[in-house]
């Protein structure tokens, strides 16, 4: 995990370091507290949304198109403002960060998008190395780390290939590698399987689960119900500005209701 160094830098309440703070491990990674967001006054996307995500959780966010899944994620990495309420990420209120602090917040969050957001003219390694270069890490360290991460996502040896020459599934793996290379506190996935066929979607979900197994907190936004049925996970359903938290997954909730 990397933190800012300047006086105005993002300084999370949970800090990595040699000294172990037992209390820090119990604190939630993210807390949405009565969050209100509207693009039009008469049609709010989120109305008093509250949610707490603990360290190491895997949470699906689902709902129909336009329900606010992407908005929820975008607010977390400060690409969208918050109209009312608080979003605490590692103890700091994201909504009140200064513009100068936002980059330091983003260094603690890995984001994967539906459209991959890869620069086609760059090689796979160059795309994956970006978060480490931004941190100013030495070239040799960057090279080693990129090699490790590519191996982890199943793209060992593909570093010199141009990103534009990869298939959809491979491109998404590169995007995942880029998101985790900086060892973020949290991994956000905004419809990462939206552009993939069902089998590839399952593969990519498996990749996220593997990453989650290493202790990374994952927030996975999708409208694909079939992905939610693969394994029971906590699901947050967004609909008409309201959120419904289903801690044991949709299947368990359906069984309970029956």
């Amino acid at each position, binding site marked *: 995990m990397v933190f800012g160094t300047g006086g105005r830098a993002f300084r999370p309440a949970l800090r990595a370091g040699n000294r172990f703070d037992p209390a820090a491990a119990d604190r939630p990674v993210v807390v949405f507290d009565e969050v209100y967001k509207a693009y039009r006054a008469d049609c709010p996307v989120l109305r008093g949304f509250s949610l707490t995500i603990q360290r190491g959780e895997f949470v699906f966010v689902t709902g129909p198109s336009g329900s606010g899944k992407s908005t929820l994620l975008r607010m977390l990495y400060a690409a969208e403002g918050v109209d009312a309420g608080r979003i605490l990420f590692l103890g700091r209120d994201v909504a009140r960060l200064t513009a100068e602090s936002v*980059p330091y917040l983003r*260094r603690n969050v890995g984001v994967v998008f539906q459209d991959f*957001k890869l620069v086609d003219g760059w090689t796979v390694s160059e795309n994956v*190395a*970006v*978060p480490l*270069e*931004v941190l100013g890490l030495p*070239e040799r360290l960057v090279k080693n780390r990129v090699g490790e991460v590519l191996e982890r996502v199943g793209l060992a040896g593909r570093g010199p290939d141009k990103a534009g020459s990869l298939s959809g599934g491979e491109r998404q793996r590169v995007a995942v590698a880029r998101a985790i290379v900086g060892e973020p506190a949290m991994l956000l996935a905004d419809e990462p399987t939206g552009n993939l066929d069902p089998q590839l979607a399952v593969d990519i979900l498996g990749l996220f689960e593997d990453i989650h197994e290493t202790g990374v907190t994952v927030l996975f936004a999708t409208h694909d119900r079939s992905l939610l049925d693969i394994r029971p996970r906590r699901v947050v359903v967004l609909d008409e500005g309201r959120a419904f938290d289903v801690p044991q997954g949709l299947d368990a909730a359906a069984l309970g209701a029956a």
Partner: protein
Amino acid sequence: MNSLDRAYRGAKGDWQLHLLSVFSVGVAFVCLVATLLVVVNVERVHDRWRHVSRISVYLRSGAEPAAIADLEKALRASSGIGQVRFVSSEAARRELLNDDSTDALAALPEQAFPASLEVETAERLLPERRQRIAAQLKSLPAVESVETYESWGERLGTALVGGVTAAAILALVVLAAVISVVSSTMRLSLQRRRLEVEVLKLVGATDAYVRQPFVLEGASQGACGATLALLLVGLLYGIVRTQLDGHLSGLLGIAPEFLPWFAVLGLIGLGGVLGAAAAQLSLRKLLAV
């Protein structure tokens, strides 16, 4: 990958756009470089004439040889006066007319070539002292008129002021042109690399980090544009000098020279600074993601 590497990668990807920008900046700089070249040489001619160490004393047509000899003797005895040479009317005619002279020149009357005393003054002779000598000479009965050549220096001085003013105005035009060209190029380049910028911002790059390669690209465009202009004007100067060197030296009294090294470096530096400033300003409000 440092900022230079990122700038090189960006410029390589958009090389046609950058080439166009360098050419446009170069065209703007050509005007400034050419004007400065003229100003520098006019300044040298002006300096040459300002420090001219010569006075021509034109004698009346009926002046007695004895009076002329006395005058020559008196001049030689004066402080600040070097050589004194008598040029007769016939000698003056011979000096001007040669085999290539036209009939019109040859038909000029004898009065057009008065006899004169060509006086070499000391280099450091003050203008006031030169004026006083001229005034004293004018009052003598054998003297028709006295030419100190200072009016030429004054005329060149006036031309020089005009040239410097023109150069200053052109510098402003160049400034506006460079800022406009580089800003447009940077905006276009930013649009083409929007995804790259977006990715950088999303992984936590600061605005300064994102801006650095663009500023370097702007600086290189400005500096390369100025260099291109210097090369073009230098090439033209070389051609003109090869063809007309003898004539120009005879006409101006000095051999024309190209811009001094510090002016060359200054122009390249100016291009670089203007390009960097233009890139910095144009991207200031365009990096929000």
